[in-house]
């Protein structure tokens, strides 16, 4: 049965699933990457994704449009990250504590909202999810076509975000300034540019991406919202940023490793190999710890990550 997994056809479907599954974490990780380059550790990623998943589902259900759902989810992510930014940048509250508070807030609020809007748990409605949009000609290429070019629109968008974020960070003025804030905010401050404003922008971008990523879980995957359905993907997003050494391309690689594992476990269950499902589901978390143990070679964190900037201190 294990050899079944190595057949070309099955491998292609595993890889296609891996690319699809990477979508939400890729969005979240890219947003987090930009925020962390600006020196802000957004530990509320899990909560922002959860809020995105819920609002995306609710807005799609009430409006009937998945596009509106995705937009609403991004807005929810922005609002939540605005609160986060106010707390950690303006009030300079400990970033880790604030992030955790936000996670608990999102978890409590979405569960409560769900239970009070749909009192009968059996009646929670599903939504019509996004369908695959094969790209003409390209999707006909053997093996590669179905993997890369027969995906949902959000997956293309997530993949395109990788070069876009890279271009932004390394080839735009604001990108340079954001990277500078992560290393030496004073340099920017002395020139008369607002550090806080740019950090706000980076965090809000991170929130929008996390909201979008979360929405992909409902609008592009399961059609239903389940309490705490993000199930650690936000935390994996944080791991991906670290494993990806704070660069977009390597973050993509890291995201694909995790999503490949996820796709593989779905396939393992599919072909009937008898491994307890708990072992398969726990695998990404074990791998995350191993990745963190091995990461010492990977790269250096922004020097000012997690340290709030204030003019009176060094």
């Amino acid at each position, binding site marked *: 049965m294990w050899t079944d997994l190595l057949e070309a056809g099955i491998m292609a479907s595993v890889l296609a699933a891996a690319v699809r599954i990477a979508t939400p974490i890729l969005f979240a990780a890219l947003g987090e990457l930009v925020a962390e380059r600006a020196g802000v550790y957004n*530990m509320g990623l899990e909560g922002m994704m959860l809020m995105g998943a819920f609002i995306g589902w609710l807005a799609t259900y009430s409006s009937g449009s998945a596009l509106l759902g995705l937009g609403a989810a991004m807005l929810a992510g922005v609002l939540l990250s605005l*609160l986060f930014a106010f*707390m950690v940048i303006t*009030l*300079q*509250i400990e970033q*880790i*504590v*604030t992030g*955790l*508070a*936000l996670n*608990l*807030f999102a*978890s*409590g*609020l979405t*569960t*409560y909202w769900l*239970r*009070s809007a749909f*009192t009968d748990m059996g009646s929670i409605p599903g939504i019509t999810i996004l369908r695959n949009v094969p790209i003409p000609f390209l999707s006909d290429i053997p093996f590669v076509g179905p993997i890369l070019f027969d995906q949902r629109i959000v997956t293309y968008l997530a993949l395109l975000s990788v070069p876009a974020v890279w271009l932004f960070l390394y080839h735009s003025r604001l990108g340079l300034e954001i990277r500078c804030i992560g290393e030496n905010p004073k340099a920017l401050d002395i020139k008369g540019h607002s550090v806080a404003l740019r950090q706000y922008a980076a965090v809000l971008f991170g929130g929008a991406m996390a909201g979008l990523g979360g929405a992909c879980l409902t609008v592009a995957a399961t059609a239903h919202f389940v*309490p705490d359905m993000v*199930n*650690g993907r936000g*935390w994996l997003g*944080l*791991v991906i940023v*670290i494993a990806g050494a704070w660069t977009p391309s390597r973050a993509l690689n890291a995201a694909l490793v995790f999503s490949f594992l996820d796709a593989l476990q779905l396939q393992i269950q599919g072909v009937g190999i008898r491994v*307890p499902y*708990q*072992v398969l*589901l*726990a695998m990404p*978390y*074990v791998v*995350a*710890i191993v990745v*963190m*143990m091995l990461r*010492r070679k990977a790269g250096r964190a922004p020097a000012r990550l997690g340290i709030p900037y204030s003019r*009176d201190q060094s």
Partner: protein
Amino acid sequence: MTLLANSGWRIERRASRSSLALISALLAAGTGAILCCSLLFVAAGADPIAAFAALAKGSLGSVRAIADTLVRATPLILTGLATALAFRARLWNIGAEGQVFAGAMFAFWCQSAIGAAPAYIQIPVIVLGGLCGGALFGGLAGLLKARFQVDEVIATVMLNYIIAYVLSLLLQQGPWTEPGGFFEQTAIVPDEAKLPILIEKTRLHLGFVLALVLAAILHVVLHRSPLGYEIRAAGSNLRALQFQGVNAGRLVLVVFVLSGAVAGLAGAFELYGVQHRLKSGTLGGLGYTGIIIAILGQLSPRGVVIAALLFGALLNGSTLMQIKTGVPSALIYAIEAIILMFFLIAWAASRFRLRRLRHVD
């Protein structure tokens, strides 16, 4: 701040905060949370006053209700203490959640291993089992941090997910599954292993008193022992502590082991004092609520006990609130987080003050 630039007023950082600042921050957090709750009640179509009344009656309305409030507070005191201990040293142990599981599982393993025995043997075994299980699992996170430089937040979060799957694996067609049962749960524990009840006709068990004793012990350890000094010093300036010759890696490990042990005890008490069988899913959330409690309690054992009692009351009252007004009891989890956010904001804001400038040009 730019808004006020030309008005003759300025927002400044205070050099120090008075105890008045803490009280006003708590009051602001309380008021904000009550207003937010009322909004959520109205959104759910319930009368806020009736809902608050049900909440109060359910948590404090009778001896039994009060006893139940104390029962709900017991694990929260312990997870709050566990988190406070680690946070004091600026070690972000988010793993109380998983350490609760580990404590319950290890206590169950030890207690089942000794078989039939009188209560005076079973109870100490359960307490030790809970402490050891939590200590081992906390120690694992500490080891990852001290030896492999794995960020402790990520390590503990991942371990939280992993242990929940391990428990589910052991309970599902594993050696622990109730014989002939369908559900992911063990059989009911023997009567001698149940924690003694303190007040008749209530569920108040020995664990509550032990949790208070532990809070007192930790208070003394933190403020009157060399280890407590090291923990507090590590929280304010680890570098200086290392220059004094303190081994930082060892301190990390010790803090995680202690913190895990305290959280593990919460799991053992929940299992043998309240639930009386190990199930997957019913231990969830205790650790995360402990984080809120630790922060509201200002990372001090005394504050933690007070905050845990408040949250125990909220959790206990929410059942009656749901029955009487139809407001889902899940609201409590949202409220807990809202209280925390308001407190964080109010506390941070109390660092600033508005001052009139003498000379304005």
